[in-house]
């Protein structure tokens, strides 16, 4: 039994959300067991940008009722560093590699995609469009017309499957999904984190002017707190577009995954739940009655 996704043959329908699992760090922490019992059917990299990024100043985390606000700021080695240092190691994972990229203009995204297209180790490309346009300041993914244009430009640069990670911070996510499909996307993934704010405890109670807790000021909310929102958005998108969807948001059990599959997701991604247990993806796949992923030779 396997799952077909954009021409890829996957052992089961559970993958990781971008930026929620660092396979190279996990190899250091858990040794060979990581590869032997790899918890996902495909591995999605954290977001890669053209230039290296250090990420946001700490603090970067705030725990909420049944969730987590993060303001990490996409730290990464940049395209050149990723291709030279990380890609050879990621290529030896026992599952297909999906590389997630983000740019602040169509030209920048196109350059990232063209570079990824030249590497056979990369099975598919995911576009993070939750990034403000350098000129308009609006999130590329929140404006359907702009999104369609960007996807169309990028589409010409690769024959690899192209996944658009939609932003939930849009007026109508289903319209954005349609725009991605029109632009030539092979799949969409959703939901990304919901924009959220936490105030520093010292500024509570009106004693001082309210100060954000997170170094990046606002952050993104994830975890069980957003699962019902995810279910609604995935359902809305799946009825509107033909292309497959990767559904995610607060999934920590097979029941949660089954709900997203039932409303039309082809794959389900696990994110914040992996922070509590790095093997949760494998457990969910097992409980969905998919056998463990085959061990890499």
């Amino acid at each position, binding site marked *: 039994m396997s799952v077909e996704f954009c021409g890829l043959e996957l052992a089961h329908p559970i993958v990781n959300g971008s*930026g*929620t*699992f*660092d396979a*190279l*760090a*996990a190899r*250091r*922490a*858990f*040794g*060979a*067991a*990581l590869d032997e*019992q790899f918890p996902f059917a495909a591995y999605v990299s954290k977001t890669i940008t053209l230039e290296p990024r*250090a*990420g946001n*100043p*700490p*603090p*970067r*985390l*705030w*725990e*909420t*009722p*049944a*969730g*987590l606000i*993060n303001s*990490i700021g996409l*730290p990464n080695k940049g395209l050149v560093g990723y291709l030279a240092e990380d890609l050879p190691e990621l290529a030896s994972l026992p599952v297909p590699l999906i590389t997630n990229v983000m740019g602040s203009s169509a030209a920048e995204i196109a350059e990232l995609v063209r570079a990824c297209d030249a590497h056979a180790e990369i099975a598919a490309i995911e576009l993070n469009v939750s990034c403000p346009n350098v000129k308009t300041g609006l999130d590329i993914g929140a404006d359907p017309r702009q999104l369609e244009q960007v996807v169309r430009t990028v589409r010409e640069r690769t024959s690899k499957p192209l996944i658009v990670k939609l932003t939930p911070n849009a007026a109508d996510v289903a319209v954005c999904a349609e725009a991605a499909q029109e632009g030539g996307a092979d799949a969409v993934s959703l939901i990304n984190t919901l924009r959220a704010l*936490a105030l*520093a*405890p010292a500024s509570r109670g009106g004693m001082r002017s309210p100060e954000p*807790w997170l170094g990046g000021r606002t952050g993104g909310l994830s*975890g*069980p707190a957003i699962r019902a929102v995810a279910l609604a958005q995935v359902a809305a998108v799946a009825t509107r577009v033909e292309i497959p969807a990767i559904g995610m948001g607060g999934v920590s059990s097979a029941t949660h995954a089954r709900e997203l599959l039932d409303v039309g997701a082809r794959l389900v991604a696990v994110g*914040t739940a*992996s*922070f*509590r*247990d*790095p*093997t949760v993806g494998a457990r969910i796949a097992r409980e969905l009655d998919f056998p463990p992923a085959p061990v890499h030779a």
Partner: protein
Amino acid sequence: MSERWPISDRSAAAPFGRRLLTVTGMDEMGAYRVLRVADPEVSEGLAVPGQFAMLAAAERWGGGEDERPYLARAFSIARFSDGEAHYLLEDVGPGTRRLCELGPGDRIWVLGPLGQGFTAPQDGRRALLVGGGVGIAPLAIWQDELARKDIPAQVLLGFRDGPRARGAALLGAAQVATDDGSAGRHGLVTDLLVEQLDKDGHATVYACGPAPMLETVREICATRSIPAQLALEAGMACGFGACYGCVVPRRGGGYLRVCVDGPVIDAAELDQVDAHAGGVGGTR
């Protein structure tokens, strides 16, 4: 077994995934509690002193203050003894409060051992262990290991008050200072450190405690060119490098992840100990 979990100089690989273990005891130690967990799998020497584990109660995790905790909490491994791992707890928030409620027979999720631990002094230096508050925990297992290696070690501990100073019993033969003078010397543990280094500076310093204490230790050691290894604390979601939440600024730019590059970090890697290391905020 050692093949499954290769032990490098500073870290041992953890069993993959969190493990459901059983609490064997919860001992009072003044203002602190010592949580004991049966962990025969790891306690056979398969951890490096300074490593930590992510802990979460198996039941009623959530539903405390602000409906938290949600994430597991990071704790230094304080000691291994008779197939049990020991952790030092202080009730400072909904996560630590729930863990403090546990008793013998209760179940607990444990992910670890994680991170980079301490390394032994070089060039015949003696070890100077400097701890503050609940941060004394990893120094206990390090003191045990140094004794096994016949490396001379001296212990200096600082606490806010008398009830907390009773935590000094976790280690042997410690010199104690308290902020309010109710036990040991009236003053700061860093005063004791300066005295010791004035007497004999041929030492490597191992420190764990609140960020301001660690920053003072770092400054003292940097001024005197004394090697120092600092065990940092930071709010973290995962403990194994996935979330990138627990960073501290690195000398020369960029950040270190406390969970995988630390928690024990060579003081020379830091320009200063970030105020947020130790101040966990939101994930206590």
